[in-house]
């Protein structure tokens, strides 16, 4: 019993060298030219001359006759199909190293299976062609496959990744920042007075260790301080109290993503420019079906000369359509400490009805001017935790950070 060698396989795919030679000899050809044109030229010449199909004369090759069929090729096909081969031609193929004998042990193993009913299909039956002599046991092909667990993205992380792609497509540049912030960036730079109740222990975390960080660039600190005290040159009355740098240097896990926007404004951003960040935020809350001990916020800004409230509503409408898949939007006047005017966006979801989608506004000048920005800045925040719950069909917010491996394995990829 034989099988094809690599060379035999190749000739079967591309045609024998001698066949390919005859095919280019429709008219006489210079030997030199033929040798360039034809791969395996020497092998082709050897067999074509031997069979008397070609003749070389004065540097030219002439076709003498073309056989009806190439015996060697036919034989190769038989070997491939594991058909019987008669002795003479087998010798030729063996001498041309186009086939090789199948090892005896393989042959023996294959022969043992002849006449039996098999379940698995062993290699030796394939290589010897003896699969013709066995019976295949039919399977129950209608029962579902055995369960395996593919490697999958965590559903909420996957949602966040797709949200980021969406924002990048809308022309926003992603920014990141430290999880531990000074109160300066978390509050003071956002014009939150130092005695504001949002800054007390029940509303935000503070650090036991390390306790204090450094304040940024002196000029910015001075401008922020002056704005808190008397409004500086922002046209504001300010909060009218003594601003304390000691409080501003205290460290805390960031309580919102707006610190990213403040840092971006202070870092000399492109004008016009669009920036966003997705920040892990921390606020003292107990873990239950509707509260997390830490959460994610998507925050962004659009900076540009002459931006106005109409533009803010325009960008909110795009978000509602592109990100929440909303059909209809509604704007509600709202209050946020960092923006004036402030607008809340409500979006009508095809199945869920009206949902509160995000907060937004035009940053107060008491925030932008001390950070060195003299043009309007549209700011928005999207509650992505809730949006993800809708999208993933989760009712218990803890599942965004699911600790249940079985649930993660079963979760649908959406």
């Amino acid at each position, binding site marked *: 019993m034989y099988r094809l060698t690599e060379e035999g396989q190749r000739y079967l795919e591309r045609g024998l060298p001698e066949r390919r030679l005859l095919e280019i000899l429709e008219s006489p050809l210079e030997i030199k030219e033929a040798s360039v044109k034809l791969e395996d030229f020497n092998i082709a010449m050897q067999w074509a001359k031997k069979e008397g199909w070609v003749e070389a004369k004065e540097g030219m090759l002439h076709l003498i006759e073309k056989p009806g069929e190439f015996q060697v090729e036919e034989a190769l096909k038989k070997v491939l199909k594991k058909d019987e081969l008669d002795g003479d031609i087998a010798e030729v193929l063996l001498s041309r190293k186009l086939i090789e004998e199948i090892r005896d042990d393989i042959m023996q193993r294959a022969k043992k299976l002849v006449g039996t009913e098999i379940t698995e299909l062993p290699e030796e039956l394939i290589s010897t062609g003896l699969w013709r002599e066995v019976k295949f046991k039919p399977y129950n092909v209608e029962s579902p496959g055995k369960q395996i667990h593919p490697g999958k993205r965590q559903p909420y992380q996957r949602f966040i990744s797709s949200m980021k792609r969406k924002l990048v497509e809308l022309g926003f540049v992603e920014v990141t920042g430290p999880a531990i912030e000074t109160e300066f960036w978390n509050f003071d730079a956002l014009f939150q007075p130092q005695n504001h109740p949002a800054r007390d222990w029940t509303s935000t975390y503070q650090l036991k260790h*390390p306790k204090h960080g450094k304040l940024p660039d002196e000029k910015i600190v001075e401008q922020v301080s002056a704005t808190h005290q008397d409004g500086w040159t922002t046209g504001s009355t300010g909060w009218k109290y003594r601003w304390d740098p000691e409080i501003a240097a205290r460290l805390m896990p960031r309580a919102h993503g707006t610190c990213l926007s403040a840092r971006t404004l202070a870092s000399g951003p492109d004008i016009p420019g*669009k920036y966003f960040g997705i920040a892990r935020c921390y606020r003292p809350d107990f873990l239950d079906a509707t509260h997390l001990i830490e959460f994610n916020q998507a925050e962004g800004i659009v900076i540009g000369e002459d931006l106005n409230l109409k533009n803010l509503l325009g960008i909110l409408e795009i978000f509602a359509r592109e990100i929440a898949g909303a059909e209809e939007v509604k704007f509600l006047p709202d209050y946020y400490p960092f923006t004036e005017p402030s607008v809340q966006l409500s979006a009508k979801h095809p199945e869920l009805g009206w949902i509160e989608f995000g907060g937004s506004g035009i940053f107060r000048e008491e925030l932008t001017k001390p950070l060195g920005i003299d043009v309007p800045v549209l700011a928005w925040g999207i509650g992505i935790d809730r949006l993800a719950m809708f999208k993933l069909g989760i009712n218990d917010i803890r599942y965004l950070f699911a600790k249940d491996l079985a649930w993660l394995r079963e979760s649908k990829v959406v």
Partner: protein
Amino acid sequence: MPKIEISLDDLRTLLRSSISYDELEERGILFVKGEIEGFSDDMLTVDIKDTNRPDLWSVEGIARELRGHYGVSEGLPKIKIESSGISMNVNKKVEKVRPKTVAAVVKGLTFDDEFIKQIIQLQEKIHMTYGRNRSECAIGVYDFDQLVPPINYTTVKPDGIKFVPLDFSEEMTPREILEKHPKGREYAHIIDKFDEYPLMIDSEENVLSIPPIINSVYTGKVSQETKNVFIEMTGNSLERLQVALNVLVAAFHDRGGTVQSVEVNYPRETVVTPDMTPREFSIDPEECRTLLGLDITDDEMTDLLKKARYDAKSVGGKIKVKYPAYRNDIMHSRDIIEDIAIAYDINKIEPDPPKISTIGHADKTEEFSDIVREVMTGLSFQEVLTFSLINKESLFTKMNMEEGEVCEIANPISTTWNSIRSWLLPSIMDFLCANLHVEYPQKVFEVGDVVVIDESQETATKTKKKLACAVSDPDAGYEDISSILDGLLRSLGIYYELKAKDHESFIEGRSAEIIAKGESVGIIGEIHPQVLNNWGIEKPVAAFEIDIDGIK
């Protein structure tokens, strides 16, 4: 943010209009930045968003604002103040304790249940938010006819006087009130550091109250029989107190009361309160048009302002506005421009997306993290997401390590979450520990942030992105995890070396440092059985943790 309950009937009476529920819900309530969150049996639950507008935290204030927007009465509300002829004397001793006070008298009131409820609710909301939980503003309302003026604001030794506080029937000293009375315990921290406590007392030694704790039963209970009231407020800032007093007397005024002033005699000056003189501000109409993107005339602007209860007129290219003295939220022209937008109705403004063309891009580390996640899932690992809040025991003790330096929360809500993780593997161990009965092998990874102490940084810390990956199975071992690491790093095109290095969390002789670009970027090995015992995990775990920026 303040949530208040009001009666729709009461609102209609005060508004002098029979506004429908639908109109109120869809349009009316937006004029006061409110949202109706519940409606049953005539009672509305309203969320008033603005934490700087105490004047809107009662039905009287909401009605006053809506009367403007619905054309019942526009412009600055007129609140007339007469003199009561009475005075309040402020003793020098209060200076170090609770230095400021203001007062007013309102006469000719008819209290009904709804009115009493609104006044109590308004006081509570002012105490909580505006009054910083009574530390900056505490309010006392008394039956005026029970008092003998002048009133004295002074201090008293903790055991220096006895009176019956509200909700109790026996006489108590201030010290006993701070120890035993529920309000005393709740607010003791504001005054218990002082040798003497604030005291409000009339000329015949009748105690009015121990501000900011509790009123006395004798004077401090307002009922349906009460006709005339005396109001005082104490705190630290005169300006702050005056605004709150104005809010309260405006509500009483709208209920038909006659507001009268009180002379408050401080040691060095006399202040007459309440002072309802309107405040003034001037805005540039051009700034308004530019900021809102609206083509409205100066006249339209002044009309809108009048609806929002301002007085406004065009003077020399500017708009001069007067606003009521119960508002203290106006710091900047923007605050007034927003009121113009609200009076205009923001849903009538045509949205117009900014015509700014920018090229977006992701943050480099974040983008690379997503590539790492893709390769890890391709290696058939399940991504997990865990909290970054954790505790020192999990970070160190349970990992078989000496306690090290880490970011610690000063006011944790629970000891389970009192620190921010400095490495990821403890979170992964915690995850495995929660899944002991889930089918093995368990192969999980997380790409997430950790925080390490670094005094050289602005925030004395550094937030770093890490990848941690673990396989747990009865026959999981070093080879399993090292082939995953190899598959990952070769896919990322990173040349790396492993250098044997012992680590307390791993079995001796079975852990190594991961070296890439000449730097140590992580650790890999078989988790120490002691660590497995500490977490209650009964299958071997092999794991690695690697610095994302180190292999980027």
